[in-house]
């Protein structure tokens, strides 16, 4: 150990001489305008979960309408469309993106890499407050005349700004402004995450020693940084079309018998811009989930992740490929038909690295020592739902199969399975896994079991049968089926069944919220490393880690993140900061 201290003097990035200098002094700077990544992470997470609850309630309302059309008179077509729009946008952007990158990114990147904090803490703080502002602007649209926009989360022009769509008075303004704010805020945070991963890793933490969680979050952040500008541009242009009457996306059109003054714009252009962002967005949500699930499975199966190198390459490959598949959302948009060949091929190619990841998770379980803890259960739930959703993606990615299925409930079922249920299960697993580090106490196991089983089985029962509604031809975004000759009456029953299950699943989330609060005070004391995990965040001197994370000395990394059940080792895990015995292979 003497050697280690000597080595410290050579570290290029000079440590500040007095670490205490970092520490904020007043309550406000410590808990409110904090520049500590961990506090910012919690702020991000709490905000995201709060707005996520709003979106959950919206989903109940629309399920009630779909399951029992006509019973709930306060839901008319206009409000229904507002519900689906806000539900979709909140879940994708303000919950999933913010929670994975703003929440887990902020908490885990510095801790897992052995850094004291993000490299630009002030920018990081600003990022959160702009995000909060974006959320508030979004919520404000519920209280404006005309309500929030009801154009669907894809916000396709021309209808998004025409009077046949609810919320075109002011809701659409607030939505676009909120998105622009979100992107600005996210970019501040995202630059932080990337530079921190590139620069602030501790001594010995080579790229190939990083846990897959970091690989996932890092790659997703790069994707987000490069993809969000497309949404930014689309939002600004749409805003100008609405506010100033420009015609970026607006062709000549006759609305309700009136010829409008627009002319010369291209609605397809918006779709290209939107999906150029929108497809990487899927992976912005999926890649961190991939990483987190890899780590959960490895830790709780007490076995190294199978094929670590392949997992890293697959993450990078998926990240790269995700930029050249966007138009598979536009197969029936009337774009040039030749594009179909190209985008179907790239889309199905991306299935290969994705499949490899699934195999490697399952193969990690093979000959493992599987502890069926709550995080592990959620990870398994993730594999099954992600596998299911990924496979139905092969239907929709294969251009000609997409023709009958696009814009039906099949699509709804597919993307909820693959980027709704699956990432949310990964998030839950991650919260059960890292909560002890964040608070020092374990979440309650029994409540966790109930939460998992109801959520997993319920969500599967909701979305699996829904595919068959779509196969039958039921279009999405219909607030009621009405009279359709090809739809048997039993479809209404299936809808009612889905609604009942959705309500049950929704209420199970209250168990989770209660667990979060209850365990904060009454949970079992966790100790520093309750899961006996190898990664650095479990090796902090104190739990929960204080500002600056590591006390006086930064940890030093001697091995990769997955030394579980190493033959010959005393324990079934070897922490990353434990040196190999002298004389071992270098």
């Amino acid at each position: 150990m003497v050697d280690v201290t000597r080595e410290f003097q050579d570290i290029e990035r000079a440590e500040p001489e007095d670490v205490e200098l970092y520490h904020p002094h007043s309550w406000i700077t410590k808990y409110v305008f904090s520049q500590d990544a961990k506090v910012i992470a919690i702020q991000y997470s709490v905000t995201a979960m709060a707005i996520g609850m709003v979106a959950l309630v919206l989903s109940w309302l629309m399920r009630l309408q779909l399951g029992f059309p006509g019973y709930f008179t306060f839901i008319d077509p206009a409000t229904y469309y507002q519900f689906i729009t806000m539900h979709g946008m909140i879940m994708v952007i303000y919950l999933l993106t913010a929670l994975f990158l703003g929440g887990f990114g902020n908490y885990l990147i510095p801790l897992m890499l052995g850094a004291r904090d993000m490299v630009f803490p002030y920018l990081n703080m600003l990022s959160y407050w702009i995000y909060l502002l974006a959320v508030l602007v979004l919520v404000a649209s519920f209280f404006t005349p005309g309500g929030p926009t009801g154009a669907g989360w894809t916000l396709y022009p021309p209808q998004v700004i025409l009077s046949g769509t609810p919320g075109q008075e002011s809701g659409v303004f607030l939505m676009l402004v909120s998105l622009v704010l979100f992107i600005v805020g996210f970019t501040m945070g995202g630059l932080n995450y990337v530079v921190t991963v590139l620069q602030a890793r501790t001594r010995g933490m080579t790229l190939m020693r990083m846990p897959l969680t970091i690989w996932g979050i890092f790659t997703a952040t790069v994707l987000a940084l490069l993809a969000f500008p497309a949404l930014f541009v689309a939002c600004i242009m749409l805003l100008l079309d609405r506010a100033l009457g420009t015609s970026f996306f607006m062709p000549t059109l006759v609305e309700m018998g009136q010829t409008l003054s627009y002319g010369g714009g291209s609605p397809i252009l918006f779709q290209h811009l939107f999906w150029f962002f929108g497809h990487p967005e899927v992976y912005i949500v999926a890649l961190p989930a991939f990483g987190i699930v890899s780590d959960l499975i490895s830790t709780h199966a007490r076995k190294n992740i199978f094929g670590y190198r392949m997992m890293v390459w697959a993450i990078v490959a998926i990240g790269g490929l995700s930029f050249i598949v966007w138009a598979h959302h536009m197969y029936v948009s009337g774009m040039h038909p030749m594009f179909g060949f190209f985008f179907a091929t790239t889309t199905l190619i991306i299935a290969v690295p994705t499949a490899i990841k699934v195999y490697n998770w399952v193969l990690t379980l093979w000959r493992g020592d599987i502890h069926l803890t709550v995080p592990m259960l959620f990870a398994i739930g993730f594999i099954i739902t992600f596998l299911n959703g990924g496979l139905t993606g092969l239907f929709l990615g294969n251009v000609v199969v997409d023709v009958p299925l696009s814009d039906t409930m099949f699509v709804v079922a597919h993307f909820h399975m693959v980027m709704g249920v699956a990432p949310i299960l990964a998030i839950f697993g991650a919260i059960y896994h890292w909560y002890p580090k964040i608070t020092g106490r374990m979440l309650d196991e029994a409540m966790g079991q109930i939460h998992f089983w109801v959520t997993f089985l319920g969500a599967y029962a909701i979305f699996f049968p829904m595919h068959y509604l779509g196969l039958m031809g039921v279009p999405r975004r219909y607030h009621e089926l009405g009279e359709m000759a090809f739809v048997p009456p039993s479809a209404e029953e299936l809808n009612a069944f889905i609604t009942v299950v959705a309500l049950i699943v929704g209420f199970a989330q209250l168990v989770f919220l209660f667990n979060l609060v209850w365990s904060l005070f009454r949970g079992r004391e966790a100790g520093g490393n309750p899961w006996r995990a190898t990664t650095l965040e479990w090796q902090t001197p104190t739990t929960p880690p204080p500002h600056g994370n590591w006390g006086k000395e930064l940890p030093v990394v001697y091995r990769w993140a997955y030394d579980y059940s190493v033959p010959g080792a005393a324990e079934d895990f070897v922490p990353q900061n434990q040196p190999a015995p002298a004389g071992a292979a270098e």
Partner: protein
Amino acid sequence: MSQDRRWLLGGLAVVFGFVGLFLASRAGHGIFYWIGLIVFLAAVGTIFGFVRAAFDEAEGKAQTPQHLVPLTMLAVAVGSVVFHFLSPWWWSPIASNWGYIDQTIIITFWITGVAFTAIVVFLAYCLYRFGHQAGRRAAYEPESRRLEFWLTMGTAAGVVAMLAPGLIVWSQFVTVPEEAAEIEIVGQQWQWSFRYPGEDGRLGRSDTRLVSNDNPLGLDPNDPNGADDVVVQNVDLRLPVDRPLKVLLRSLDVLHDFYVPEFRAKMDMIPGTVTYFWVEPTRTGTFDILCAELCGVGHAYMRGRVEVMEESQYQAWLQQQPTFAALANGYARVTSRSPDGGEASARSSVR
């Protein structure tokens, strides 16, 4: 397992049992009944398992490893397959030449279904076989290049087996036959209008800027090709059977999507451009037209009907329709008068 946890899980099983009973009783019909019954039986089985475990513990028998989790995962896989084969919800009988699309879907179902079942069953087996036991240690196996290589190859083969037929059918889908007759469908909030080419078989030019009360689809009056075009609104679309059709799609205001589930083919309508697809109706009958692209509050009400009829019947009907030129020359607008009377107007749009 601790006593507390057993009570909690047991309570949960009871709740689920009641939910199952409720579902089974609610409709007493088809799938509801079965799902409810399965949930109920599963709940009873779980409670039985708990009781047995409690007795075992009281008698001091060694605790058996937990099989509940692997069994449930197995049930998910098996249940999905069973659901697939027993579900009463399947696509509507096809009425066009796009049977190839259905076949591609079937191929995809088989490949993905096998992959899904195999992986989940394997997962369940791992959970069953390698559940934690005191004193056991996991194997140490960082990677296996050979296994990963063969898995990659297998996946690639599966992907090719889905992609190749898909692309072949797509090339058919985008190659409109020479002899296809043109027909135009125009969407606007929230109704469908149709235009037939008339004697010359060609549609005249159109422009959204020319739309007016007397010229609802914006036809160009100076284009001779358009003079004999037939414009119909507020009636069913009529198509001849067994003739390839190039369906030209136009929108006057926002995005719409012409969608007839029985035809399988569909395409968006984009204001400012003309999109198309081709289809050959293969059986007579009446089918629903839906809008499949969100187009405002009336989206779900934007309905229509297409009637596929014998060629002779179709021609007879078409002959009776006034041409665009005739209408423009001051004939009364009689477009909604159709051979089979007022039936059609009842089904017009919500506007």
